[in-house]
């Protein structure tokens, strides 16, 4: 049955999704008693709130209740509790929620929003992270020093820096003085938005007993339960979060955001459910956005092309609240070398409050942002050395046993193979003609690394329950967000238990009342972490079945196995189907009773070996669980008359340890490439004094079917992970990480221009060519 591992079976959710049967949160029915919510949002980027008067709004017929910051004065947040559910005395971005209207229709609620009177005193705003970090900048969070914070985050009270992560390794200044070749440059990455096609939605129902149920488009039902319960001072056992299918998240639906508003609003009208959904416009600036980045990096090498020193400054445009973003800053810092072995490193990664939309996790968690600069600079350095970009990377990239920036020795890694495969797939080194005289063709590459960024004790759990006909119900808490995780989990349970994969049923929707705990569906951690938990649960069930049959047959367990849904004996060659006995047990001989009972296996997984990093040096024995690495190579054309980039070929090679379902792995790579290319060429939240002026699909373009590369070549590399199920490690976010710098390097190769900031829109590329 282990053949099912590595088999490209169809997705277990595909039929429900193509027939319209798959239920998303907005599809659930709540009957005629359903109420609707809308949020009152700040029109100011930074202001003190003097007074909120809701009387006129409350008097509007159809308005049932209005929640404000007075209802929940406390704080909420994942790594740093710096956020009110509703703003109280201060608003910090355009869109900051101040009040939640509950009414009998969305139209009435919207009407009531206009009737809420808020008296503001405007304050100067901060719209650039580097400016924000200056000592004389207006301070957005005067109470920063009082916020509850995780012990690996280092805020600087009295400033706008909510986390300062440092690396101090070797002697950078001394080594730079001896370098033969040095390059340094500034890079900028704008805030962008995840743009899941399903906007955020939450429905809450409170009962008079105090119990609350929340249905939502959520990557994090358990984290939401925990954080909302703590913020509201209720028991986690009394808050139930149900998470049906989710229409894309990419990080925007991780942690807690508008869901907490819905719960507080519902507490005002217990007994009648309240539905709160974001409009597409709100989605662009009121949900999480990807943090912006202002980077300055300097790297040095010997004349033989050996990297020896790197110095980096990152100022993250983390927006008004950084409860989640502080850890992106940390991840950016401890990954700041990219996948290279560099003995001397100095890095400062600052998480900066600005009066911009709230930065949060987005596919890659800081890695697309930092690799944008790192990988362009590596090309520049290779160029200055007169080395081929590929040869330079092969020489300096991490190999098994290399020392990584934090001091850990790299685990077995297939990065070299990724570079070789991806570049070969686009005929690296071969100069090829453009398709027209006004077009120029170029090739570029970039490599990447990423570790799951999470608390050291992020856990997973699972149960495996057998039904009468030996179909298997698998309980788990990880969300099927599109990545195919439930299909991979079904394959793992089938293999570990010894039954056909068609017998596996994943217990959905994830429901904190019935599903086993899972930290969050983030960090590309499920295949590995939840995979380990479901395999443990399947093995636990298997053990119970084998014990039962061993006793029944009077044989030794080690002579028995489960194959294709039957227990078999290698000793006596007997076989017994699982059907019935896994629920009803087996009769003892001579009608003297029964043995066994309904089989339920349980399993959990939590990494127990993750250590902290020294606050002053960023060094530590093992600060992450593993790194997924990869390489992308791009072959493109630039239209010299329009500046338009047309991607002919992208090869993407990633070391996934073991592809449980190779087809789904390739699908992740393809989707990541296009999302990465979209960010590289089109995407930017156009912010003017804190206001997003392009919050629609017309003005904020994402890649459509006509923009996709002509050919995407996904390539799987498998260097097994020692603690991964069948050697698997995550792939999901990674495919987006190297795309943008690989495109930038190919554009340089084609037309000789290099833009320090994204996006490489046709207009900007054209103007840069004109200036050249």
């Amino acid at each position, binding site marked *: 049955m282990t053949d099912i591992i590595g088999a490209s079976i*169809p*997705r277990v*959710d*595909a*039929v*429900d*999704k*193509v*027939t*319209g*049967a*798959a*239920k*998303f949160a*907005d*599809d659930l*029915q709540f009957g005629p008693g359903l109420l609707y919510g809308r949020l009152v949002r700040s029109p100011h980027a930074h202001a003190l709130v003097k007074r909120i008067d809701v009387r006129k709004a409350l008097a509007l017929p159809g308005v049932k209740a209005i929640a404000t910051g007075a209802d929940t004065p406390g704080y909420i947040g994942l790594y740093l509790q710096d956020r009110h559910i509703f703003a109280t005395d201060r608003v910090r971005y355009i869109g900051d929620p101040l009040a939640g209207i509950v009414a009998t229709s969305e139209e009435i609620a919207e009407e009531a929003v206009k009737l809420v009177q808020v008296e503001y005193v405007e304050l100067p705003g901060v719209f650039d992270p580097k400016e924000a970090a200056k000592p004389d900048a207006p301070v957005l969070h005067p109470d920063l020093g009082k916020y509850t914070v995780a012990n690996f985050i280092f805020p600087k009270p009295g400033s706008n820096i909510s986390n300062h992560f440092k690396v101090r390794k070797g002697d950078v200044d001394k080594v730079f003085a001896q370098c033969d070749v040095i390059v340094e440059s500034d890079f900028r990455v704008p805030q962008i938005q*995840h*743009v*899941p*096609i*399903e*906007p955020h939605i939450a429905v809450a129902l409170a009962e008079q007993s105090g119990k609350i149920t929340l249905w939502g488009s959520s990557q994090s039902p358990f984290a939401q339960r925990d954080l909302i319960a703590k913020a509201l001072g209720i028991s986690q056992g009394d808050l139930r979060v149900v998470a049906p*299918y*989710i*229409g*894309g998240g*990419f990080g925007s639906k991780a942690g807690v955001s508008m869901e907490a508003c819905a719960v507080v609003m519902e507490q005002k009208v217990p007994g009648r459910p309240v539905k709160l959904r974001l*409009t*597409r416009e709100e989605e662009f600036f009121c949900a999480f956005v990807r943090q912006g980045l202002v980077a300055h990096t300097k790297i040095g090498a010997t004349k033989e092309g050996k990297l020896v020193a790197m110095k980096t400054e990152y100022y993250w445009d983390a927006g008004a609240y950084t409860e989640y973003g502080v850890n992106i800053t940390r991840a950016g810092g401890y990954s700041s070398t990219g996948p290279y072995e560099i003995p001397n490193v100095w890095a400062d990664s600052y998480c900066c409050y600005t009066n911009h939309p709230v930065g949060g996790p987005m596919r890659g968690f800081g890695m697309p942002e930092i690799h944008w600069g790192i990988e362009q600079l590596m090309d520049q350095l290779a160029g200055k050395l007169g080395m081929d970009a590929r040869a330079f990377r092969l020489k300096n990239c991490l190999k098994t046993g290399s020392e990584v920036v934090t001091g850990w020795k790299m685990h077995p890694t297939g990065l070299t193979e990724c570079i070789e495969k991806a570049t070969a797939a686009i005929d690296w080194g071969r100069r090829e003609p453009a398709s027209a005289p006004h077009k120029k063709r170029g090739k570029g590459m970039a490599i990447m690394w990423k570790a799951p960024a999470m608390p050291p004790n992020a856990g997973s759990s699972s149960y495996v329950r057998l039904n009468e006909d030996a179909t298997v119900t698998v309980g788990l808490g990880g969300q099927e*967000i*599109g*990545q*195919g995780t439930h299909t991979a989990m079904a394959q793992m349970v089938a293999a570990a238990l010894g039954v056909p994969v068609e017998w596996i049923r994943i217990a959905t929707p994830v429901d904190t009342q019935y599903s086993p705990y899972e930290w969050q569906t983030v960090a590309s951690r499920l295949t590995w972490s939840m995979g380990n938990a479901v395999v443990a649960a399947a093995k636990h069930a298997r053990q119970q079945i084998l014990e039962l049959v061993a006793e029944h047959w009077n044989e030794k367990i080690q002579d028995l196995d489960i194959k294709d849904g039957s227990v078999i004996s290698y000793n006596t060659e007997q076989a017994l189907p699982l059907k019935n006995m896994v629920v009803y047990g087996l009769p003892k001989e001579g009608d003297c009773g029964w043995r066994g009972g309904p089989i339920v296996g349980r399993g959990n997984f939590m990494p127990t070996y993750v250590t902290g990093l020294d606050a002053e040096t960023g060094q530590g024995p093992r600060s992450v669980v593993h790194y997924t690495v990869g390489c992308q190579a791009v072959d493109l054309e630039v239209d010299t008359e329009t500046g338009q980039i047309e991607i002919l070929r992208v090869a993407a090679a990633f070391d996934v340890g073991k592809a449980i379902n190779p*087809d*789904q792995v390739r*699908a992740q790579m*393809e*989707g*990541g*490439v*296009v*999302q990465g290319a979209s960010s590289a060429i089109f995407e930017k939240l156009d912010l003017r004094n804190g206001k997003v002026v392009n919050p*629609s*699909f*017309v003005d904020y373009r*994402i*890649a*459509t*079917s*006509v923009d*996709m590369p002509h050919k*995407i070549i996904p390539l799987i590399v498998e260097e097994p992970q020692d603690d991964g199920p069948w050697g698997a490690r995550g792939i999901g976010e990674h495919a987006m990480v190297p795309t943008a710098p690989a495109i930038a390097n190919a554009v340089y190769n084609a037309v000789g221009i290099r833009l320090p900031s994204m996006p490489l829109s046709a207009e900007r590329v054209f103007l840069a060519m004109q200036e050249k």
Partner: protein
Amino acid sequence: MSQHSITLQVNGTTERATVLSNMTLLTMLREVLVLTGTKNGCAAGECGACTVLMNGEPVNSCMVLAVEADGAEIVTVEGLAHDRKLDAIQQAFVDLTGVQCGFCTPGMLISARALLDRNPRPSESEIKDALRGNLCRCTGYTRIVEAVMEAGS
């Protein structure tokens, strides 16, 4: 706001509904007829998640008033399969992994069905052009285009 009584065919069934003047076809399908397969992604005619067939033509149902659909024939994603047998385009999406999160899928299938109805053997560029109004953030479109090719072959 005045109310209107309308009659229309939805997935081959005659439906009568009383709707307000400003109700969209999307809202009527989702909230009055509880056909929730059709999705609301932007309510502005920009993402294509709400695409349905109206008299054989793909339309953004968020941009059509329910009263405009009086007398029309509507096909939603729920109407593609018959007798528990998937339409060829649905089967191709399953077989070739044209689906990830599944939220754009209903609209994508309807746009693809409309294309195949008027052009049973579309070229790759004709497919990309026909689907440009249907945004997908997960798949990168590759397998969706392949699935439409497959269903058309």
